[in-house]
């Protein structure tokens, strides 16, 4: 008459526990366990341009994929570490791209000046225009960031400035294919590991506090709005770099820099990859962007597919791929009797 049932139990691997402390360097096994996944990503991404010598068309895709990955890291950082849902990644891309175009075409700065300058000034500009809604909580930030890309493209269209609907053409291109590819790949890796480092520092702790309990941050004598502006500035740096890079890559800055793709793909990638992991954002992009190349035939139906994936993940599998993989890597499961 005994009801025998079993349930699953998850236990950390011994290796994982050992590598958390000083024993991490006790043997090559531990070292490999720790740096294996990281090295896999870094070397894998760095080798991509060389491997894709076989398929030149996909080299372009890698560039765009890395831009999206940088944007997705920015989105993940803002949404899951600071609590600001930015529905308009296109704003960063557009501002960065147009600034780079202005600097390069109108003021004839060389590309190695126009990209960094566009990044920094673009980020400052984005921070200033987003600033009004930062003291507010809730849906306001999402609403305003959703509006801004549309507002900018409407203003450019209505005033017919900056090339109007034709955009600014004739930017310098980057010298050589390998410069093109390694610039964005290295920036992506720097952004990824830099952000991972940043969020584990004191600043990261404060930012997470802003998300979880802003009153306590305020009670500690820290200016919440200033911290939020700092976070937006950091995210905008990444986004504006992406925009400036794309403008130079296509040798053109136009209204499509404010397009919906730049807003929705990073969000979908983050939700799919696993929010709050930062690497998940990159993995999500590495799945979604090539997928979108395959689906090019379907036109705007791609966006429908993203949205279905996005809704599916958000409703049914909100932890995302990365968290799942991490769990499998660090823990094992077994059935135990209850």
């Amino acid at each position, binding site marked *: 008459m005994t009801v025998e049932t079993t349930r699953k139990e998850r236990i950390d691997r011994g290796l994982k526990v050992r590598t958390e402390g000083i024993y991490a360097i006790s043997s090559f096994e531990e070292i490999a366990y720790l740096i294996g996944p990281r090295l896999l990503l870094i070397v894998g991404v760095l080798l991509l341009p060389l491997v894709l010598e076989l398929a030149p068309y996909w080299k372009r895709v890698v560039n765009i994929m890395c831009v999206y990955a940088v944007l997705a890291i920015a989105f993940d950082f803002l*949404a899951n570490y600071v*609590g600001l*849902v930015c*529905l308009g990644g296109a704003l960063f891309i557009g501002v960065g791209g147009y600034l780079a175009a202005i600097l390069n075409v109108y003021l004839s700065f060389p590309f190695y000046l126009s990209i960094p300058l566009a990044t920094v000034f673009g980020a400052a500009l984005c921070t200033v225009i987003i600033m*009004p*809604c930062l*003291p*507010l*909580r*809730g*849906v*306001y930030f*999402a*609403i*305003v960031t*959703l*509006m801004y890309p*549309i*507002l900018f493209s*409407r*203003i450019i*269209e*209505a005033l017919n400035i900056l090339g109007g609907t034709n955009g600014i053409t004739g930017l310098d291109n980057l010298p050589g294919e390998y410069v093109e590819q390694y610039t964005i790949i290295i920036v992506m890796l720097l952004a990824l590991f830099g952000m991972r480092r940043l969020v584990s520092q004191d600043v990261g702790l404060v930012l997470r506090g802003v998300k979880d309990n*802003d009153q306590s941050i*305020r009670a500690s004598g820290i200016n*919440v*709005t200033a911290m939020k502006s700092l976070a937006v500035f950091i995210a905008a740096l990444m986004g504006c770099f992406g925009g400036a890079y794309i403008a130079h890559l296509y040798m053109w800055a136009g209204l499509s820099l404010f397009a*919906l793709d730049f807003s*929705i793909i990073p*969000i*979908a990638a983050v*939700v799919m990859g696993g929010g709050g992991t930062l690497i998940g954002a990159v993995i999500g992009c590495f799945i979604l962007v090539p997928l979108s190349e395959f689906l090019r035939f*379907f*036109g*705007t*139906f791609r*966006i*429908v597919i*993203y*949205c*279905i994936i*996005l*809704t599916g993940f*958000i*409703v049914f599998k*909100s932890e995302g791929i990365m968290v799942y993989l991490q769990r499998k890597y660090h823990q094992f499961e077994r059935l135990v009797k209850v």
Partner: protein
Amino acid sequence: MEIIVYGIINSIVLALLSLGFALVYSISRVPNFAHGALYIGAGYIVWLLLNAAGLPYALSIPLGILATSLIGALIYRFIIIRIRGMEISEIIGTYAIGLAIIEGLRWGGLRGMTYTLPVFIAGSTDILGVTVDYQRIIIVAAGVLTFVGLFLFTKLSRVGLALRGIAQDERAAMMLGIDSDMTALISLAIGSGLAGFAAVLLLPLGNIVVEQGYNVLIFAVAVCVIGGLGSWSGTIVASFIIGFAQILTETCLSSNFVMVVALLAIIVTLLVRPSGIFGKQKQLEERV
């Protein structure tokens, strides 16, 4: 004179567009970013019923509105209910649903030829020396009737009182036996129905184009932010403010700036009075 007449009409149009969004947000605290998609979806459904199924216009309109509110209820029942209360997921989820509907329509249905709905009664008349067609007069009448109807519904009927109870204090309302999920479902159904109603009234004035979906969402959000999210009277006052501001810019500058006015109004409001004109209820909570 023209400015006054068309200002009033435009304001009522805006109020009709944003009423559904305001209602859903004030009751269930779900920012329904799929609102614009539901609007354009309703227009497409009515067009299908009218042209593909060959139903009479008078029958396809109520059917279209019903279908839209059913879609809204289904969206709540199967998707939003699972992510309710998680703000980030709510925003992304509803936005994704809206995008899926709009881009799906762009891909599948609404491209190539132009889609139009016929006006209810053709022709026009003179009001105060300004020529106004009958459709716009119907819009104004229907808009006013909707406001009065909703007002009476929420003040007098049992369901309406339950909705208001949840909107004011969810926990207390739940203690009195009001089902929070049920009211949210009803609010989403009514909100979507209102989007459909607005679509049926307004789409005969122009073509059914997918970009309308985004514009409607922006207008609805603009009106609601300026009037104060969750405030009824604020919604109506704000739609009059934006409505007249838009007509003024259209006559003084050019029609390209109509959208810019709405967007700038949001930003200025957030700067000066973040809780909107009448949004007193959550003022303290929303400020950090």
